């Protein structure tokens, strides 16, 4: 059974995952949480969108 994390911690891990590979324990805990939390899944897709939008922003006029 993976460690339990709350949304505050899960969102932090999602953000950290944009910067470095998560450790096995972190990753398991995050996946376990995401499997049960729609709000954090929304946040996860929004992070991906933010990164895409930011990259696009550099070419927008």
């Amino acid at each position: 059974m993976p460690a339990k994390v709350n949304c505050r911690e899960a969102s932090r891990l999602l953000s950290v995952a944009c910067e470095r590979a998560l450790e096995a324990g972190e990753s398991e805990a995050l996946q376990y949480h995401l499997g049960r939390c729609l709000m954090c899944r929304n946040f996860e897709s929004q992070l991906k969108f933010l990164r895409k939008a930011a990259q696009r922003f550099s070419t927008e006029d």
Partner: protein
Amino acid sequence: MSTTPVTDPRFAEIESHRPYLVRYALSQLRDGQLAEEAVQEALLAALESISSFGGKSSLRTWLTSILRFKVIDLQRRAGAERQLFDAAQVDAVADDEAWLDDLFDETGHWRIPPQAWSDPEACLEQRRFWEVFERCLDRLPGAAGRIFFKREILGEETDAICKDERITASNCWVILHRARLGLRACLEKNWFGAGAEGAR
């Protein structure tokens, strides 16, 4: 100045990147006058050395790399003392967890749960969306806005950012996290959320 080749056909092309360059300079310097000064110097330098631009990178990337040095130069001129003070301030921002308490309750749940955004990709084609995006970027606290811009918009590596800002990688991540949470909340409120412009 008399040597500035204003007749060069690339002059207009260089000028067309000015709004973007001002945006970049503002995000780093947070001072309208200094930002204009940095851009002006960068554009003049670019015009003088346009012949060395090989076209390997895009013109905008080349201009931004020139501007980057001007910005660092201006930051240095503003005083080493202020830089150190800034680094300390950035660390303080990273250590301060109170802002997270505004977003999460005592049990670590979202106070305002992130909604599902409908068709975000389509927004990328809408001019108004970019205006909202830019306003939201401007509203990020100083260090968060500056570091997010470097990391996500310019695509700089975290290592390089840490070195420039004289902060640790983990503080850099905390600040990026803060910027992402802030930007997300601002976009939801002003664009994607119920009743907001993009949801209509």
